């Protein structure tokens, strides 16, 4: 009996998570997201994945005892994972749970039982557990390839709703249109597409590493000159393609996806800024949204008809950035003496005070009170023009604001990167790691921290200025603590202090919920879970910052995104 307990415990945990997910409404919401058209929804995947993962974990744990042990552990986990949902249904059908748990309705119970009954529930869970257990026993490369393939199918299916409108831009090109529609059906990936994508990714994953190794071997076998020539060519080509791609992106993917890209860009800007404050200098600023708000409100006040100023954006922008910097210094000075938790709380307090003031009647005549400021003109208008392949193009506002955002992101990346590998960047790192020792080495703590605050604030101000022109209005309600937390989660997920990490974090945390509307209800819940899980398992983030190697004085440090060493 005791032998069975570890597996059972894992299974029960998986079952508990299923129950929790059901009660908060995830299970029902996910049913709206079709992955494989007319066949699988996200709910199906969720209800199968949990016992499967339980089985895999149980099997892994018991594997020292041999394959038989592993499989039986997985089976036990599978059975156990069905128990909590079964109990939920049992209880829910006899008592009015719905009076308390809003989602505990008959539909939920049907879903949990697969529309058939308890046997179906147990059957599926046992099978999933066994499958998970078996996969865990496979050799590493095969196992990873299977996981990659499955994730690819799910990802494609989830994003099908987004890719289709992009596809329809290319309706004229038969090759693209036909393959596209063959793979992506009306609502998710087609069954044919599933098979194709699965097989393709599986094969690529399996053969990927050996192929890369062989390529590296071939490369080193050539002369040193040829090597560096190839590398420079590769790098140059990569940069060229990226830049070119970025420039025409709005026209490649259409105006709805570009909206998402815009939002990602704004968060990248803020993420880079907060990365300096938190990641480089180690100051946990929870009031970061204040600088964003100041940038936005400055532009609003200066360019909108509200106060009658109506200055052009190019004038308002530097003023906004300057205002943010000044605010950064003013807010920074009193805060400098505090540390760690207290610093976080004080900055949070400041952020909230600013929001309350912006919302209040006291400053209504300047800031518009709760109604905010409206009719902010856009920063930049492209107008219609002609392009090869696409013909006449009339960009929509999201496509227009993309360019200023892109420009400022590039500027911000450049500034951040320069600073990181400089005297100031090193001073920040020293202050973060051990500020007493840093002071003992001649670093002026006050000045260094203020510079971090000011630089971070300037980037947030930039972002705020842009968002004001993008949305066309500013309301105090949109500048709450949530945004500071958003940016914080983003840089933590990507890797505190890591520049490519900001991109990763922004992509995952901003793009994903946008793309997957069915997740949006649970966005903040997932953020919270992400924070906790990341801190418990991988506090350095998905793309951790690493120290620069300056071995050759004549070779510049690697570009961000060019590899892991950044």
């Amino acid at each position: 009996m005791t032998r069975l307990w570890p597996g059972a415990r894992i299974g029960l945990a998986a079952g508990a998570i299923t129950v929790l997910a059901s009660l908060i409404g995830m299970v029902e919401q996910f049913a709206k997201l079709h992955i494989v058209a007319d066949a699988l929804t996200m709910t199906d995947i969720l209800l199968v994945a949990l016992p499967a993962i339980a089985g895999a974990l149980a099997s892994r744990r018991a594997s020292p005892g041999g394959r038989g042990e592993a499989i039986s552990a997985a089976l036990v986990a599978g059975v156990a994972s069905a128990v909590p949902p079964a109990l939920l249904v049992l209880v829910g059908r006899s008592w009015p749970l719905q009076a308390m748990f809003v989602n505990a309705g008959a539909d939920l119970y049907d879903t949990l039982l697969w529309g058939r009954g308890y046997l179906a529930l147990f059957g599926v869970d046992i099978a999933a557990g066994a499958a998970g257990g078996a996969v865990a026993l496979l050799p590493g490369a095969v196992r990873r390839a299977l996981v990659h393939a499955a994730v690819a199918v799910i990802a494609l299916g989830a994003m099908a709703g987004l890719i289709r409108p992009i596809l329809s831009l290319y309706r004229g090109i038969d090759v693209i249109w036909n393959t596209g529609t063959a793979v992506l059906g009306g609502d998710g990936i087609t069954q044919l597409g599933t098979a194709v994508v699965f097989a393709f990714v599986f094969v690529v994953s399996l053969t990927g590493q050996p192929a890369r190794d062989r390529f590296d071997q071939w490369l080193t076998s050539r002369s040193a000159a040829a090597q560096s020539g190839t590398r420079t060519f590769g790098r140059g080509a990569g940069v060229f393609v990226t830049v070119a791609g970025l420039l025409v992106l709005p026209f490649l993917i259409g105006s709805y996806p570009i909206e998402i890209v815009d939002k990602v860009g704004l968060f990248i800007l803020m993420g880079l800024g907060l990365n300096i404050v938190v990641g480089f200098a180690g100051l946990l600023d929870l009031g970061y949204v204040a600088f964003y708000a100041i940038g936005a409100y400055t532009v609003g006040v200066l360019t909108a008809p509200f106060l009658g100023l109506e200055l052009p954006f190019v004038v308002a922008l530097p003023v906004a950035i300057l205002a943010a910097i000044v605010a950064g210094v003013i807010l920074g000075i009193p805060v400098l003496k505090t540390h760690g938790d207290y610093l976080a709380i004080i900055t949070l307090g400041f952020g909230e005070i600013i929001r309350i003031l912006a919302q209040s009647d006291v400053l209504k005549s300047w800031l518009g009170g709760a109604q905010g400021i409206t009719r902010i003109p856009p920063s930049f208008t492209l107008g219609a023009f002609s392009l090869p392949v696409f013909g006449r193009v009339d960009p929509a506002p999201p496509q227009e604001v993309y360019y200023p955002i892109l420009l400022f992101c590039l500027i911000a990346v450049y500034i951040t990167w320069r600073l990181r590998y400089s005297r100031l960047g090193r001073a920040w790192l020293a202050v973060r790691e051990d500020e007493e020792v840093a002071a003992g080495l001649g670093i002026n703590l006050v000045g260094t921290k203020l510079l971090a605050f000011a630089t971070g604030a300037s980037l947030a101000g930039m972002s705020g200025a842009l968002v004001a022109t993008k949305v066309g209005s500013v309301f105090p309600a949109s500048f709450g603590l949530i945004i500071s937390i958003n940016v914080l989660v983003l840089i933590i997920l990507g890797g505190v202090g890591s520049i490519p990490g900001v991109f990763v974090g922004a992509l995952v945390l901003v793009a994903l919920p946008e793309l997957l509307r069915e997740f949006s209800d649970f966005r903040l819940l997932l953020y919270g879970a992400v924070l906790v899980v990341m801190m418990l398992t991988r506090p350095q983030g998905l793309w951790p910052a690493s120290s620069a190697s300056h071995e050759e004085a004549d070779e510049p440090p690697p570009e961000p995104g060019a590899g892991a060493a950044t």
Partner: protein
Amino acid sequence: MTGESAPPALRIEGVTKRFGGLTAIARLDMVLPERSISSVIGPNGAGKTTLFNCITGFYTPEEGRILLRGTENLVRLRPDDISRLGVARTYQNIRLFPDLTAIENIMIGLHARLSASLPAIVLNTRATRREEEFAISESRRLLDLVGLAGKGDLLARNLPYGDQRRLEIGRALATEPSLLLLDEPTCGMNPHETSEMIDFIRRLRADLGITICLIEHDMRVVMSISEQITVMDFGQKIAEGTPEEVRSRPEVIEAYLGSGSVEACLVPPADTAASNRPGAPDDTLASDDTVTPDDTPPPSLSPGA
């Protein structure tokens, strides 16, 4: 050796440091002659590291003066100002920046000697670039000097213990100090490494002309290298003089309970032996916010935490 007419590198006059009701240092007078190598010894909790902390500005003594080169009173100056006046130190339980590479650790020591400002950095001016090149070559030179050539790209926390101590000295030297305070530099070293360190310290003084003061527990080191030894106990100076003068003084022997080196240095971070003197004041920098790297054991009870 030292010019009689030159002002002493450091003159400590009547320094008293109290923590609440506890007196960690009581009316201490001490003189470090220019270009000398001297040692401060005493049982754990005697106030030695507290003294270093007062000199470098982390603690402010309640009374007294600390005169650098006869003119600058270091008391009440900021630590970074004191560093810029030419005072550098290492720490009892090695406070490197563990997640940075060796060469980055040293480059941080160069901070005050460089001058690139934020706009200059962003604009990547020629002056900034030249300064960075200088920083790299100077750091390499210092790595060489402390015997860590070629190890510049290793993470500080991955270096072997002896190398870490040497890196810390290298980092301190990067500030171009005229006064170098070493807090237990041979702690945790085997005899071979220890004698290397002794030679190294002598060479430092000979080549760079700096004044060096050590806190040490290893009596072989103390006796062989010091031109002057100051003995402390309970925050007071109980003896001072040359090694011969000091070793036979009864107060010194009593303070050490008759043995040569019964007080071992606390090897960080595994040693959790509590100070055996109840009521001894916290001997080191108390910092609630020292970030410890993930894989070293957490701060422990020992004063070396």
